[in-house]
């Protein structure tokens, strides 16, 4: 990985998640690890040309991506 930042913890539907911002090939990706048995999730911001939203990479976990993405955005805003 290019760069690894601090890990922060959030609550997602009563499940503890650990989030780490990682720079991969000059692109920011958030790696999410769950305290239950779910597989880790990679989140990125994307655009449809008019607005921006969160998505998972690879595809398949859009709902989690949007919900956790909003939590991550709130955490970063609050931190600043």
């Amino acid at each position, binding site marked *: 990985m290019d760069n690894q930042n601090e890990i922060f913890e959030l609550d997602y539907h009563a499940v503890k998640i650990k989030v780490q911002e990682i720079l*991969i*090939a000059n692109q920011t990706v958030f790696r999410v690890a769950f305290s239950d048995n779910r597989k880790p999730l990679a989140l990125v911001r994307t655009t*449809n040309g008019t607005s921006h939203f969160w998505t998972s*990479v690879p595809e398949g976990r859009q709902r989690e991506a949007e919900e956790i993405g909003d939590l991550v955005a709130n955490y970063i805003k609050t931190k600043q």
Partner: protein
Amino acid sequence: MCYYNGQKVTRAEYIRLKQLEKTIANYGFLDKQLIDGFDYGNSAVLKPLAGKEDFELVEMEWGFIPSWLKSYDEATHMRRGGMNPATGKFDTPLTTLNAIGEEMLEKKMYQKSAREKRCLVLSSGFYEWRHIFPLNKKTGQPLKTAVKYPYYITLPEKEYFYMAGIYNTWTDKTTGESLDSFAIVTTKANPLMEEVHNAKKRMPTILNEELAYEWMFGKLDDKRITELAFTQYPYEKMYAYSLSKDFKSALNPLERVDYSELPPINLPRYIEEAALLKPNPIEKDDLRQGNLFG
């Protein structure tokens, strides 16, 4: 417009996300600063998946192997040349690192691949030699032998960019093994590359995201294939700087080296912008794939 994860995204975003997907899965795969074409090694290539608007990020051998060769020994002979035991004659080496965009559809070797097997070669920059003819101190006339200065050419706004490629899935008839190999499509040099690669005045066909998508996924007729192959990336968005003459063996081959005898690149707009577009400092573990052309 395309769909990723059931959501509408732009074409450029689609290709970025798909690439990121593969990068995450294959991390470490691109950790090469310098790829010398004449080593005929592997490079990272985006290879389309049949029947889908999706691709694999794979390693392919740089140096197109035509279908009619029967064994890898024959491929090596084609590349190196040498005495042909069957004919008793000396065969000259045939370099297939690059496919000339203007001739690609006329050449038996490349025709089918240009129509059916187009790919994208990932690059973070490429190398070319600038030929300067020193003046004879007595006569003031240029000497006949040029001094060659290596240059590194990048797109400062892009960490990675796409070169048009064509590939062939070749089967070694003596072993049954299959191997994907590719050639980078080249076009006429833009004004910057005319100055840098001043001996041949050629450059790789660099495609922006929209054109890259079309090159890889589009159902293209010969006219459109040729148009895309002729694409000249705008020189104002490129940056070139000189390197050490022994950069191939240097610890950091991308370190800038200036030469007092080397005339500046004579493009006013480019020179103005170049001051703002300094190349990023290179970290030791930076992920780069530079392509060294012949």
